[in-house]
C-alpha cells in the first residue's frame, strides 16, 4: 500500500483541485482529507457519509464558583493568562494544561473534554474517503489528522486498496507535520511566484527532514515562466523531480463552481497537463 500526501506550503496553489483530479484518474484508491481546519475536498467528492464520530482531543478547565475561595493559586500558576479576574476560565485562552486543576487547594477546578470536531467515512466518486471537520477555532488539528490517516489505512486494508491519496493543509505547522510523517511520497504543489517559491522551499525542507521522498508540481506555470524556471533550477539543485507544469486555465474555476474537477471537462490545457502528470506519477512513484 502506498500513501501519497499532497501539500503546498503556500495556500491556494491548487492542492485540493489537484487531489480531486488524481482521485478521478486513480483506480483502487482511498482518499483522506487532512486539511481538517478548512476541509474542501468534499466539495468535489460529494461524499455519502456512512460513519460519523465525534472527536475530542484534550481538556479544558472550568472553575466551580461554589467551591472557589479566590485564593489566586491558579492565576499565579497559569502561563496562558486564561483565568480572568473574576475567577473564570477563558475558554479561548485555555491551553488545556490542567495546571490550575492540580494547584487548586480546594479542588474547585474541573476538567472536561470538549468536543473538538467530527470525522467521517464516506463513499465518493473518487473512492472511499475519510474526512474530518475541526470545530471552528479549535485546537489539536494534528491529532485529528493522525486519526484520519489511520482510519484511511484501515479502510484501505479492508477494501484491498493499494493507494491512499491525502489532501494536506497549507503551511509547515502542526497539521502538515502530522500529515506527512511516515508517508511514502509527498507531492508539493507550488505556483511560480516569490511567495510560492519561498513557501515551497520551506515545505520541501520539512519533508526532507523526515527523509520522505518528495516531488514538485508547478501550477499556473505560465503566470511567470521565469520564476517557474527558478523553481525548476532549485528542484534540480536539491535533486528533486519536477513532475510537471500545469497551465493557468480559467476552466479549473468554472468546473469548481459546479463541484467538478477540470479533468472531467475533456481537453482543456490544465486537464491535459494533469493527465500527463498523473501518468508520470504512475510510472515513477506507483510502480
Amino acid at each position, binding site marked *: 500500500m502506498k500513501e501519497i500526501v499532497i501539500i*503546498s*506550503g*503556500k*495556500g*491556494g*496553489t491548487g492542492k*485540493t483541485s489537484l487531489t480531486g483530479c488524481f482521485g478521478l484518474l486513480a483506480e483502487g484508491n482511498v482518499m483522506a482529507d487532512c486539511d481538517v*481546519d*478548512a476541509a*474542501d475536498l468534499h*466539495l468535489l467528492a460529494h461524499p455519502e457519509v456512512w460513519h460519523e464520530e465525534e472527536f475530542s482531543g*484534550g*481538556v479544558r478547565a472550568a472553575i466551580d464558583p461554589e467551591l472557589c475561595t479566590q485564593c489566586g493559586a491558579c492565576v499565579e*500558576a497559569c*502561563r496562558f493568562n486564561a483565568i480572568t479576574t473574576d475567577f473564570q476560565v477563558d475558554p*479561548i*485562552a485555555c*491551553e*488545556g*494544561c*490542567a*495546571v490550575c486543576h*492540580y*494547584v487548586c487547594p480546594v479542588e474547585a477546578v474541573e476538567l472536561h473534554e470538549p468536543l473538538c470536531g467530527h470525522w467521517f467515512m464516506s463513499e465518493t466518486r473518487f473512492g472511499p474517503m475519510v474526512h474530518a471537520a475541526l470545530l*471552528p*477555532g*479549535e*485546537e489539536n*488539528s*494534528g491529532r485529528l489528522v493522525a486519526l484520519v490517516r489511520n482510519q484511511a489505512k484501515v479502510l484501505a486494508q479492508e477494501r484491498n486498496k493499494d493507494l491512499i491519496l491525502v489532501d494536506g*493543509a*497549507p*503551511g*509547515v*505547522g*502542526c497539521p*502538515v*507535520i*502530522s500529515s506527512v510523517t511516515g508517508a511514502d511520497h509527498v507531492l508539493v504543489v507550488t505556483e511560480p*511566484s*516569490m*511567495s510560492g*517559491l*519561498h*513557501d515551497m*522551499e*520551506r515545505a520541501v*525542507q*520539512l519533508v526532507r*527532514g523526515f527523509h520522505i521522498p518528495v516531488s514538485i508540481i508547478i501550477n499556473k506555470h505560465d*503566470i*511567470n515562466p521565469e*520564476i517557474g524556471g*527558478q523553481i525548476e533550477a*532549485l528542484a534540480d*539543485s536539491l535533486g528533486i523531480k519536477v513532475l510537471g507544469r500545469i497551465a493557468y486555465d*480559467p476552466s479549473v*474555476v468554472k468546473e*469548481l*463552481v459546479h463541484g467538478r474537477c477540470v479533468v472531467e471537462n475533456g481537453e482543456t490545457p490544465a486537464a491535459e497537463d494533469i493527465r500527463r502528470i498523473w501518468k508520470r506519477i504512475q510510472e515513477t512513484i506507483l510502480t
Partner: protein
Amino acid sequence: MNPGTLDLPSRRGPYNPLAKDNAGGIPQGMGLPGEPRGKPPGKWAGVFGNGRAGMRKRMIVSIASGKGGTGKTTIATSLAAVLGSRAMLLDCDVEEPNCHLFLKPEITYREEVTLPVPVVDTSACTVCGRCGEVCQFSAIVVIGDQVLTFPEMCHGCGGCSLLCPESAIREDARILGILEAGTAGDIEFVHGIVRIGEAMSPPLIKAVKKRIRPEKTAILDCPPGASCPVITTVTGSDFILMVTEPTPFGLHDLRIAIEAVTPLGIPLGVILNRSDVGDDSVCRYCSDIGVPVLMEIPFDRGIAEGYSRGRLLVECSSEYWQRFEEMFARVEELAGSPTEITKEAAV
C-alpha cells in the same frame, strides 16, 4: 521619506535560503510610489496628531481568510503601504511568512523565541510519576524507573516542574523560531518565522503581537485556516478583514473562519479577490449574514504577474491607492460596532 530604502536587500540568515541562492535572478520590486506615501491625505491630520494631547489609540486590523492563497498578504502589504508611517505590519503567518517578499524590509532586530521545556535531574528524581500524571501533552512520561521527556510535544505550561515534589525538574528553552523587526520605508515591520519541523506556532505569534505599538495602526497578516493560530492572531483586534474568492472553496472556508471568530465579537468586513472568477454565492452569503463587502478586486493578469514578482497591488495598479484609502475609512467607521452575525451564519 526615501523610497530607495525599500529596495534594500531582504534579510539574510538561515531562515531565508531564497536570499542566498535565488534572489539574483528575480526582478526586484520597483519601490513604492513616493508621492502619495510621503504625504498622507490631509483628512488624517486632525485624527492622528503627532503625539499631541488627545491622540487616540490606533486600531489593530487583522487580515484573515479561512482558505489559503486568497490574497491576505496582498491586502496586508498594500494597506500598510497606503497608510505609510501611520502603520506597522506584523506578519503573523509564522509558518509561511511572505510579507517581507513584498515590502523588502531592512531588518534591524532579531531574537530567538523559545518555549520552556522540562529537564529532569535524575539524581534528585524518585520516579514518583507525578510529572507524567500531570502532563496533558505526553511530553513527559514515566516508564519503569525512567523519566522520558519529549520536548517537541511540550506546551511550556510548567506543570511538571511546578508540581514535582522533589523539585527535580528545571526548565530549558526549546527554540520555536525567530522574530525579526525592522522598517520598510516608513512602515514598521515585524514577523515571526517558525523553525521548520516545529508544530507550536501560537507562542511565536504571541511574541510577534507583543510588539504592537498603540500609536500605530497595526496590520496583522493571519495564517490561513480557522484553528488556534488564527484565533491567537485575531484576539484583541478591532477589526477583521476576511479576504476570500467567490468559489465554493472560498465560500466554505469563509463560513468556517467567520464562525471561528464570531465568539470574539470583533467587527468584520469581507474583501472579494478575483471577484469576477466564480459565482455570486459569497456575495449572497455576506448579504444574508449582514457582513459588508468592502472591496472587490477583479482578476487581472497584470496584477497576478506583478504579485508573482513580489510587487504590491497598489504598485501594479495605481487606482487601488485610493480604493484602499476609501476602504480603510470604512473600516474605521465600522470598527466601533461589532458585526451582528445572524444565527444562520453560525450554523
